[in-house]
């Protein structure tokens, strides 16, 4: 019997525009099934239908047959469906309600009226499986641990069919591999795992079946290996060979600690002017802290950072308004940085001139969205607006913290091309933190590998290859 089977399923939110169109899909027990495709093609809608979010929470017109474990799910309440299918949503951080790991895992079990003794044994079982401690405080967990916690709290509910929506988005190589190997072991125990993910390079060794979604249609890929290889190839670098002349920042024995915890220690590195530096390292190694120190959001607790951008800014590590015009920072989540009522106003805010803002809008292919509210755009478009808004002030330094999270291949490629062409035109210094093997080389002249708060090695593009192949091993 198939774990999940969809027959001629169509869905529309408004009754007119079909998000899914006569979809036939299946997933089996003992297999990892991957649903791939660009953003906005209907992957999340498909997952929501299987786990009953549609039509129980998100309403719309659903036609066709949805069979879970051989049973028709249409017309069943979410409370019934969730006993059979578990879903691990994106953004684990936003889903944690309890302070202690144990309580968070118990939450789902309590709702399904498991006996307290059963809950206790389930907690121990899934904590062991997910490599987390039931007594840990949830707020002090790393991104990877939070993702494993939310997965554990779903698994504890005992469903044999588990859907994961972009589980690797915020995980480094190590964290991704750990999660994927755990999912593989679950498959061997007879679970049906369905994953919707953009980082196909990570999934490749683990997926048993691959489905491709496009414009609301889905088809099974026969030659999964060549499909996944094509979708996860590295993006080419278009920038000319970089020759270092001067430095923009020089860090000497820089350290940063919070209370007794050392986050960075003895970091000595020079960031070349007009160069592109990529910071590599596992989750929690101190990359983001390093970015914050360079951008003057934090002050080092040890050592010295010298800037060579402009004499006016001095060397006191104080971030003024003028400083942030010269040092532009783009966050992983664009929601924080967008606040104006239209895209045009957003880009004009802080821009050198209205004409230049218009020019930036065109370069980022945003001119047709100029009168839209920034928060009404898709995630990919919002990211482009946030980068465009920062670049409109013509910063000499552009700092990017995980700018590619959740991007499909095409979206990622266009983003990298824009960043590089802007770099060629303006000669800015670009510092990027990324876990994404697809774009790391294309954004790199110099790679700095951070490990346990220290600089482990520095090199060129070869260091990127070395880093990713080492973590693969």
């Amino acid at each position, binding site marked *: 019997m198939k774990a999940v089977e969809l027959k001629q399923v169509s869905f529309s939110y408004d009754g007119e525009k079909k998000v899914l169109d006569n979809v036939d899909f299946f997933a089996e027990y003992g297999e990892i099934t991957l649903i791939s495709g660009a953003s906005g093609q209907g992957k999340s809608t498909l997952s929501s239908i299987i786990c009953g979010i549609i039509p129980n*929470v998100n309403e719309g017109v659903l036609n066709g047959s949805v069979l879970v474990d051989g049973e028709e799910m249409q017309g069943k309440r979410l409370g019934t469906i969730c006993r059979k299918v578990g879903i691990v949503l994106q953004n684990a951080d936003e889903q944690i309600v309890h302070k202690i790991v144990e309580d968070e895992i118990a939450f789902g079990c309590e709702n399904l009226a498991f006996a307290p003794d059963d809950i206790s044994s389930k907690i121990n079982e899934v904590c062991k499986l997910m490599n987390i401690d039931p007594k840990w405080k949830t707020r002090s967990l790393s991104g990877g641990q939070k993702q494993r916690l939310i997965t554990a709290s779903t698994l504890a509910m005992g469903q044999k069919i588990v859907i994961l929506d972009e589980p690797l988005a915020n995980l480094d190589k190590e964290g991704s591999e750990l999660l994927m190997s755990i999912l593989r072991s679950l498959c061997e125990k007879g679970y049906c795992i369905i994953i919707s993910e953009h980082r196909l390079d990570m999934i490749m060794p683990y997926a048993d079946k691959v489905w491709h979604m496009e414009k609301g249609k889905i088809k099974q890929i026969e030659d999964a290996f060549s499909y996944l290889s094509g979708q996860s190839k590295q993006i080419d670098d278009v920038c000319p060979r970089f020759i270092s002349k001067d430095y923009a920042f020089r860090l000497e024995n820089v350290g940063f600690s919070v209370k007794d915890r050392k986050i960075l220690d003895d970091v000595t590195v020079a960031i070349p002017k007009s160069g592109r530096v990529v910071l590599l390292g596992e989750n929690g190694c101190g990359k983001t802290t390093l970015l914050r120190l360079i951008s003057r959001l934090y002050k080092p607790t040890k050592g010295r950072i010298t800037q060579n951008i402009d004499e006016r800014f001095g060397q006191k590590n104080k971030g003024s308004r003028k400083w942030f015009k010269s040092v532009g920072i783009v966050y992983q989540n664009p929601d924080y940085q967008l606040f104006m*009522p239209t895209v045009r106003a957003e880009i004009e805010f802080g821009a050198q001139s209205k004409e230049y803002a218009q020019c930036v809008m065109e370069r980022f292919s945003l001119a047709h969205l100029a009168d839209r*509210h*920034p*928060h*009404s755009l898709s995630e990919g478009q919002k990211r482009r607006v946030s980068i465009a808004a920062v670049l409109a002030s013509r910063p000499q330094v552009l700092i990017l913290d995980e700018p590619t999270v959740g991007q499909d291949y095409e979206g990622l490629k266009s983003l990298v091309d824009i960043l590089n062409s802007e770099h060629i035109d303006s000669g800015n210094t670009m510092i990027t933190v990324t876990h994404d093997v697809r774009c790391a080389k294309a954004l790199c002249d110099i790679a700095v590998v951070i490990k346990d708060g220290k600089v482990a090695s520095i090199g060129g593009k070869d260091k990127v290859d070395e880093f990713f192949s080492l973590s693969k091993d």
Partner: protein
Amino acid sequence: MEEKTTNKTEEKKSNKFKIKDIVFLAIITACTLVTGAVMPLLVNVPLFGIIQLGLGLQFSLFPVIGMMKVRKPGALIFMAVFISLFLVFMFPPMVMIILCAVVAEGVVLLFFRGYKSDWACVTAGTLYMPLTIPLLYLYYNAFYTVNGEEKQAVSMFIGSSNVGMAVGISFAVIALCFVGSVIGMLISRELRKAGVLKK
């Protein structure tokens, strides 16, 4: 007749609270509480209306956003219940805020017949906090009476012996809450237009 009954059933169904409503109202409550953490400092300052002046803006702005998203009768009462579970540890008399929410919702249902209109949310947000003024006034009088010092509460509160000033402060609180409510409405309208604030 049948159509009317169906409409009523549908209205009843749509007025039922869903999990997403409860979650949003709870988060909005947490927000109100975080920004209203000055409460323990204000409760003992003997100034007429000081609590309401100190908390009026956030206790109108955030609840209005909650009501503008949920738009169901009882939304304000829900928030008041959540808030009072905390206020009980800071200043138990402020638990009367539940009563104020009931009155404010009653007024809105009477005049607007629900929360369909944005101004219904603004009205509820504007009335909510100012209604605590007379209740706290009564509380202090009752409490001081227990203490054997009749009407000392009245003289203790600077301005309350001067009727004009008490009325002035009350109007200032209402104005502040109105401003907070309008800001809440403007934010909600903008986010609704952007598709962020969906019902």
